[in-house]
């Protein structure tokens, strides 16, 4: 088209595929770009960007106590991402991990509060873990049942379920489970036998989520269940044609997903907080969505992404303390980084063609030959 004026300035074209090296190149470029933009944010806040980033890294990884805090942030992120992975693989948009974590935490707390005097530590913890799994599982099963039965919208349903369970915990906190003397809106700190032991300074939840990572990988890759989930994710019709009971598989997978989220809830109450409150999930259920997507549902990649986000979370906190950068600005930096990371996937899948670029390219090739 000679009439260059009328050619669109930028066009999008889908890429067929891209060598892995180039893909990583784009990802690294995206992160670098994100760091530059984030640096501008720090600069605007009146601080030195380099020093800012140094503070983030040092705050998160510099001291033993910092690393512990980072690991503490890391556990629920990875756990929740693992929980939602099978659902997302199935294209069942479970954004209710937040609520499922809370439900699991609540059920585990019941045993921590009322059975701690009757049971020794190991059986008590096992029962709490099981209660968490069942609680989270059932909370996830409800929307799955409605979806399988009546085709309700799982996105809205799971989202709404979050608010319900958070409300219930709020009520318990200020009502029947409130500690004495009343008025604190807090639940008693757990007895020591209801608390997970520490390993290397952090509660042992990190070992549990790492084990779960391996199990989830095996489950998704090598089991019949994992296979069924993958088929349904690609096409429900195909699954039906293959004789799969789609509704049953949806419910089973959601139960599993909720159960893992519930175990995360158990880890949080028993390990991290030693008590229950309505904000126990602390947005991990939502951030996990980002983690899962960035990791492209690969459990091992989730370890890396969760670790990165945990570092950012802790680093942002330190940035706030040390350099008086408001937490909201630290959140902006994290947001920028995530945005670029998600956005770069777009450039991996599509390419931009600028006006005239192809003609130049063609001329170049012609000149070569």
């Amino acid at each position, binding site marked *: 088209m*000679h*009439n260059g004026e009328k050619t669109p300035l930028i066009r999008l074209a889908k890429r067929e595929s891209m060598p892995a090296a180039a893909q990583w190149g784009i990802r690294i470029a995206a992160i670098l770009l994100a760091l530059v933009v984030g640096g501008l944010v720090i600069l605007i806040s009146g601080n030195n960007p380099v020093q800012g980033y140094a503070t983030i890294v040092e705050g998160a990884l510099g001291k033993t106590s910092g690393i512990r805090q980072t690991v503490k942030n890391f556990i629920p992120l990875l756990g929740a991402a693992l929980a939602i992975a099978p659902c997302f693989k199935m294209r069942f948009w479970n954004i209710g991990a937040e609520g499922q974590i809370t439900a699991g935490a609540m059920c585990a707390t019941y045993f921590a509060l009322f059975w701690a005097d009757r049971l020794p530590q190991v059986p008590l913890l096992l029962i709490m873990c099981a209660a968490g799994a069942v609680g989270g599982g059932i909370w996830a099963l409800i929307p799955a049942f409605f979806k399988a039965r009546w085709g309700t919208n799982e996105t809205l349903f799971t989202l709404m379920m979050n608010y319900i369970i958070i409300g219930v915990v709020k009520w318990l906190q200020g009502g029947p489970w409130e500690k004495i003397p009343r008025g604190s809106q807090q639940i008693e700190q757990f007895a020591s036998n209801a608390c997970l032991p520490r390993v290397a300074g952090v509660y042992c939840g990190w070992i549990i989520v790492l084990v779960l990572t391996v199990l989830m990988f095996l489950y998704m890759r090598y089991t019949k269940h994992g*296979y069924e989930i993958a*088929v349904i994710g690609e096409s429900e019709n195909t699954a039906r044609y293959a*004789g799969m009971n789609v509704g049953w598989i949806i419910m089973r997978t959601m139960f599993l997903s909720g159960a893992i989220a519930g175990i995360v809830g158990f880890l949080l109450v028993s390990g991290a907080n030693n008590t229950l409150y309505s904000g126990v999930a602390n947005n991990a259920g939502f951030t996990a969505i980002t983690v899962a997507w960035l990791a492209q549902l690969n459990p091992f990649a989730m370890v890396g992404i969760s670790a990165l986000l945990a570092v950012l979370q802790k680093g942002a906190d330190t940035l706030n303390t040390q350099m008086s950068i408001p937490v909201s600005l630290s959140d902006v930096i994290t947001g920028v980084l995530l945005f670029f990371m998600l956005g770069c996937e777009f450039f991996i899948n599509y390419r931009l063609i600028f006006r005239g670029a192809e003609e130049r390219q063609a001329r170049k090739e012609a000149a070569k030959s």
Partner: protein
Amino acid sequence: MEGTSAIQLKGITKRFGSVVANDHIDLDVKRGQILSLLGENGSGKTTLMNMISGIYFPDEGHIFVEGKEVTIRSPKDAYALGIGMIHQHFKLVDVFTAAENIVLGLEGKGRFDIRSAGRRVKEISEKYGFDIDPDKKVYDMSVSEKQTVEIIKVLYRGADILILDEPTAVLTPQETEKLFAVLRNMRADGKAIVIITHKLHEVMALSDQVAVLRKGRYIGTVNTAETNPQALTEMMVGRAVSLNIDRPEAKYKDLRLEVKGLTCRDHEGVKTLDDVSFQAFGGEILGIAGIAGSGQKELLEAIAGLQHVEAGSVLYYPPHPNSDIAGYHVPVDRNGEELVGKNPTQIRKVGVSLAFVPEDRLGMGLVAGMDMVDNMMLKTYREHKGPFVDRKAPRALAERLIEELEIVTPGVSTPVRRLSGGNVQKVLVGREIDSTPTVLMTAYPVRGLDINSSYTIYGLLNQQKLKGVAVILVGEDLDVLLELCDRILVLCGGKVSGIVDGRGTTKEEVGLYMTHVGGGKEAAQDA
């Protein structure tokens, strides 16, 4: 005016990633002529036309309308130049009337006058011989009526270059004739018409010129009067091809399936199958014909256990003891085993297999994002004991199929999405055949395939038939059904309107059955 160039393309090139869909294509469409754009699926016909109608933007090349170079960036630009395209998938609003759909999206000043629009629609209809009621709602229309609306819509906007993408794919032979008559009227009126097709007899019957594309390249344009189907096929495929389909006789013919009074409803309560009864025999290909959506899919699904059956029965009889497939499957009652009420896995174990190629090819029989290995075990993965899947057997099967069916793929680990249409269908049909079925049901197995691959698939079906398998084939192309099938069952509105002998029937007879229950006989008597 007649005979002058309406639209000219020079060196048009379009790439999708590394795939060159159109490679420097030249084309000249003249006024008062019908040009057939002929080519196999994937040869780039639709892509080329989409560039003229403003849906895609060419990477290289020039477009001239009335001798002047133009830039077409959107369908709106195309309309402004008098170019209108009728797509395979109609873009109509169901709850609007014909007239409303026709004027929809037009920019007008002041109050919109639906009545004068209706008058103009009538004028256009009368001029070219369309049969349309402007006030009829789209949801009440047949496929052919909807197509008419699409064509009028384009004419209403003043198009005098019309592009029709596979317009006859969804029509009965009778409707096709009507459409051709209209197109001839439009040609007489001086319009330039391009029809995209891969059906040779239509090319011969309708067009003045034929332009042939092969694998994205322009092969040449010939005058229809100076060519013949064999020559066109050679241009299309690139080498000589035999156009005859075999119809061998099997050694054993025995009753395999007996369907009695089968009735199904969709989830809105509408009957999709209405008292369907027929028999299928081993050693026979039973073709199922009918206009799209007459219950073909539902029939196969009902037999395979994938549809809820409201009434009726499907009885299965085991194969002839001397046939190749005897003894492969669970022995069943000689007096016939009821399949209704069994789940899909049980029915498959009996030996009834279903290979359905949906419109988008992938999505029902195969999982596009998975590799061949994972697709091989789609229906058998449960048979392995324990919680884990076994990928050894399916891998072996995949490797064998690649060899036996000459499937072109980089390897067993390539997602089937990356495979070309023909290879995808070979994977699907190959897997079904590998389960040594006694009843092989397949729908649209050659949908979108090139001629060569189609013949491979026909060969596979014949092979099965000779083994004693009862083959049930739902097809789109009547010509193929007539050549391949031993008997043809015609569905119309979920009812069996007739079962005819493939060797003794005509296209017209089947066409009449397609539109009228029992109408075929009356019409035959009238004739």
